[in-house]
């Protein structure tokens, strides 16, 4: 090999290297703030694989990961076991330190952030005696989870946990008053949060009102944003629950505003402001409405379309109900005019007709001859339904009375001897006493007595009523018949669409049947949505809020009532 040949060879190699560098750059250029980077970086981005996407890159963490020589999982397991030991000994500082080490090794392990944050806020805090310490530990748990969100910016679960901790633990715990006060006065938390906000642009911000509910709201919103971006991340949690948290927080914010004011003034005393309260309620109502209108996936499979899930919203129930009612009105409108002019008249007429068809002559006669309503056959247009209902009631009463006559008195008394004797067990003084229990027993006694036949009542007022055995069987069937009648009554009084349709003929009936089919479909949706609405609404509608109230806050109360009414 001559010198010259060697030289040319070298030049060739260098040229080849230069040529190959270019495609390498295209492929491997890492993603930066201002650029998407090369092909590989872009693919990483799409598939959510790269570190720069998932959160911060942490040098200390990287160093530790390297130091484990690839046995990261083993190290984390050992550390986890160790933290359980520390927890057993209530050495919470060590638990935190160990958790820090674990998260440094595995920052993308969502469960650890979630679980330890919860553990600190709930378990660790509960073990301390001084409420200020407890508060500190709740905040520690919260900040721990929040740190998790900086490493896993896309994880809705962590945002939910952070929001949950700061809302529920501070706002609903036994020490809620103390915690809320401490939260408002917490300078350190505010300072830390502002620093974070300055560093990371897109994180939930501490509201200037420094209210924990609002703060939690911000987290819930962040969770929703990321959930929608990613399309997944909250596991199998019902979407309705997931989206419901933020509006509920708003409601609670408004409620609490009435209790401890809208903020703190210079002397750290609460300030009550009617306008602010009103605005809070308005915003809460608006949020709730938006939420009610939101159509989301549930976790219940759609059987007609396998692989997908049924979708619903809270307001869907109203919509469907309205639709169902409209269709029913149409059917009624199609009824023949001889039943009446208005829809109401038509309904009543139908009820009357049904009674007519069901009752036999004797029964009908009895109805006609009922004591309450002297009946004029030509006048049966008047108040049919009302008459019908009253007649039913009276008729039932008469039936019952007849049943009693038909059966032997002893059976009834047998039925009630036991309970009645409860009353007789009381001593004379006790019977004269006025404790609520005594009163209740007396009332119960009277009620039971009302079921007993007139002539037996006297007997029943003496203890240990002795009735011949054959008599006892008499009244047994009466109540069965009573139940039956009551059941039939309600079904008779209910005028369902198919009953209405039976009054139509031909084309009209066919149309009505169509509408009935539609109504059935709508009913399914309606009941499905109603189920959720009942669950969610129960929290809002039926919960009794019992708080101390200041005079200033009462003014805002009317807004709450208005909002409530509107929700209903």
């Amino acid at each position, binding site marked *: 090999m001559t010198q010259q040949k060697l030289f040319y060879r070298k030049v060739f190699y260098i040229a080849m290297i230069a040529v190959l560098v270019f495609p390498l750059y295209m492929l491997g250029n890492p993603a930066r703030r201002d650029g998407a980077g090369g092909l590989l970086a872009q693919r990483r981005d799409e598939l959510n694989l790269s570190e720069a996407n998932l959160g911060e890159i942490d*040098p200390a963490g990287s160093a530790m990961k390297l130091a484990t020589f690839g046995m990261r999982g083993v190290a984390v397991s050992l550390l986890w076991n160790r933290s359980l030991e520390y927890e057993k*000994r209530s050495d919470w500082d060590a638990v935190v*330190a160990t958790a820090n080490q674990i998260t440094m090794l595995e920052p993308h392990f969502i469960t650890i952030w979630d679980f330890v944050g919860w553990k600190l806020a709930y378990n660790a805090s509960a073990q301390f005696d001084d409420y200020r310490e407890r508060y500190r530990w709740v905040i520690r748990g919260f900040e721990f989870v929040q740190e998790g969100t900086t490493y896993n910016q896309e994880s809705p679960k962590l945002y939910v946990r952070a929001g949950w901790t700061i809302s529920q633990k501070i706002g609903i715990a*036994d*020490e809620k008053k*103390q915690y809320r006060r401490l939260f408002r006065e917490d300078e*350190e938390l505010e300072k830390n949060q502002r620093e974070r906000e300055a560093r990371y642009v897109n994180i939930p911000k501490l509201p200037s009102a420094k209210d924990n509910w609002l703060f939690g709201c911000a987290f819930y919103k962040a969770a929703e944003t990321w959930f929608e971006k990613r399309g997944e991340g909250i596991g199998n949690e019902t979407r309705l629950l997931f989206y419901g948290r933020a509006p509920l927080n708003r409601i609670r914010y408004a409620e609490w505003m009435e209790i401890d004011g809208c903020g703190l003034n210079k002397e750290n005393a609460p300030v009550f402001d009617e306008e602010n309260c009103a605005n809070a309620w308005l915003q809460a109502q608006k949020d709730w409405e938006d939420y009610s209108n939101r159509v989301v996936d549930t976790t219940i499979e759609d059987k007609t379309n396998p692989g997908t899930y049924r979708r619903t919203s809270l307001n869907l129930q109203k919509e469907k109900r309205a639709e169902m009612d409209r269709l029913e009105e149409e059917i009624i409108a199609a009824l023949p005019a001889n039943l009446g002019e208005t829809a109401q008249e038509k309904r009543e007429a139908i009820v009357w007709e049904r009674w007519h068809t069901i009752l036999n002559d004797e029964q009908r006669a009895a109805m006609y001859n009922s004591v309450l309503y002297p009946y004029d056959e030509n006048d049966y247009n008047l108040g049919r339904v009302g008459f019908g209902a009253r007649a039913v009631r009276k008729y039932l009463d008469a039936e019952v009375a007849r049943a009693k006559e038909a059966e032997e008195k002893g059976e009834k008394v047998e039925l009630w001897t036991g309970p009645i004797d409860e009353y007789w067990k009381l001593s004379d003084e006790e019977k004269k006493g006025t404790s609520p229990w005594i009163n209740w027993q007396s009332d119960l006694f009277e009620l039971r007595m009302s079921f007993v036949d007139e002539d037996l009542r006297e007997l029943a007022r003496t203890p240990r009523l002795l009735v011949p055995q054959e008599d006892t069987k008499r009244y047994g069937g009466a109540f069965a018949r009573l139940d039956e009648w009551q059941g039939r009554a309600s079904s008779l009084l209910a005028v369902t669409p198919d009953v209405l349709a039976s009054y139509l003929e031909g084309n009209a009936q066919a149309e009505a049947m169509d509408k009935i089919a539609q109504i059935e479909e709508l009913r399914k949706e309606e009941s499905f949505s109603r189920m959720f609405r009942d669950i969610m609404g129960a929290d809002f509608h039926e919960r009794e809020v019992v708080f101390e109230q200041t005079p200033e806050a009462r003014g805002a109360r009317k807004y709450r009532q208005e909002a409530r009414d509107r929700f209903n």
Partner: protein
Amino acid sequence: MIIENPIPPYLEWIGMAALNWLISVGALAALFSLIALVFLTIRKGPKQAVPAFVGGVRGALEDLFKFSWRRAFAIASLAIRESIRKKVVVVCVVFLALLMFAGWFLDPSGKDPARLCASFVYQSTTYLVLLLAIFLSALSLPADFKTKTIYTIVTKPVRSSEIVLGRIIGLATVGTAILALMAVCSYFFVSNTLNHKHVLVDGEDVKAVEGVAEDWSTLAPETVVASGETRLANGHKHKVEVFADGTARVVEENKHAHTIERIVEDDKTLYKVGSAVGALQAKTPVYGKIKFRGENGFEKERGINVGEEWEYRSYVAGSTEEAVIWTFDNITPERFPEGLPVEMTISAFRTHMGNIEKTVMGALYVRNPKTGLTAETNVFNSEKYATKALFVEREIDQEKNKVRVRTLKKTGDESTFDPVLTTADLKQTGEKYDLFEDFVVDGKLEIWLQCLDSQQYFGAAEPDLYLRAQDANVFANFFKGYLGLWQQMVILISFGVLFSAFLSGPVAMAATFGILIAGFSKNFFVEIARLEALGGGPIESFNRLVTHENMMSDLSNTFATQLIKAFDAVSGVFLSVIGLALPSFSDYNFYADCVANGYDVPWNAVAVHMTTTASFAIPLFVVGYAILRNREVAK
């Protein structure tokens, strides 16, 4: 501090321990002699066996007792030089780098930053030094064998015992030097991390107390004329008090305080808050013996269990006669001239929320063990998980301190814990009492602790309440903390040299590493060997891991399972023997714990541990020597 296994006084301990050691060593020696005899009989025939054995023993004794220190030290200095050439200094550099990283994730804003910081440095030093020890000791002898430099040694009149001992000493010296260097670096790191300053601005942060006179000179010097709070630093603030004499004081927070200077210039007052003081401590606790008083006044070993998984502490109920009692000895006016500084870390357990704003209340009493005279000296609000300091004054003045005294009264039944103490019995008698004259008998004193809130509980273990004698030197204590690590290192080096005497380098390293791991989890190891651990012995556990069975359920009774269990039982015997011979490395964490928690390392503990270390090192050395002696150097 939490001490689960208290270390008995040296003189009490040494007798039994020495006996145990002699028995085990004797048993091992007898076993080996038997094996050796059998071996020799096979090899040389019965006639030759005994004289050969005797000759061997004589040679061994000569080697062990007549060896030359000069030669051993020559080998030691060679080992030192060899290690230095191996660039052992790199380890130090790694450590320093680690210290720099540590600053990023050590959070000094916790409640007890000193503890976190100190435990971190001890932990990281431990990892590095022990790994270094393994590395050096396991590769030293095999290197000689590989390069055959051992030939030149063995052909000099050097005994195997000198070789082994020289190596151990040399490597231990290197390790000690590294350890010392790391200790110094750690000390500076810890001081640095704990150091911080606060800002204090007059007028904004410090304001005059309402109603105080303008002219301070008219007031008594200790009157607090102004108070306030410093600014936030390291996650906390301190309250500040200014006194009438112009001095100021920073109140302790997060286990430390600061120096403070108050300078008045023209019209302005400047406050200079200095560096942290008292963050690292070296308290010297004086412990007593604990017992409990049950509901009926009976004496018990332990109190009530409130359902905690960790049974270190037991509890007494509040607002009852139940009490926790500590008996102290050797209480003299010379030791505690002004009274008893009591510190306690008791746990409070609530059965109902009670008053959220207040913590559970308790009371402390001193009681004369002989006559039963009792005085309620302190009523306090408990601080769970924190150390509360109380002072029992020497002069028990009922007027000043509002204490109540229970007068002497004997109740009838001698079998109950006599005399019965109820709070109803306490009254103010108006007399003055002296602690040492009226309450201490022959140096003995009882201190009682009771919970005052009904349906709440106080929990304590023996080390939870102690008297704080004169603090020890913090600087010296920090280095004493490394004694534990030093002893671990010595044992590990002995093991390393022993293994390397007959195994190749990497295998010896793995074996020594195994000893390290097993030593740190000795209890667990012994549990598994004795099949006492949940989930059975080693093979059974492995089976459960692979088949995803949990620890609690029984395995199905197939032939394979029975085989596994039998195998585990047999191997368990061998493992038990190994387990008994394992040093318990985690015991040595005591030193680091002491320093991290701010306590002085007691010399008694040092003596006990050193003796234990020697009791390991010596047999290891002997076995190592024996192995080397009987090894064919050339292949």
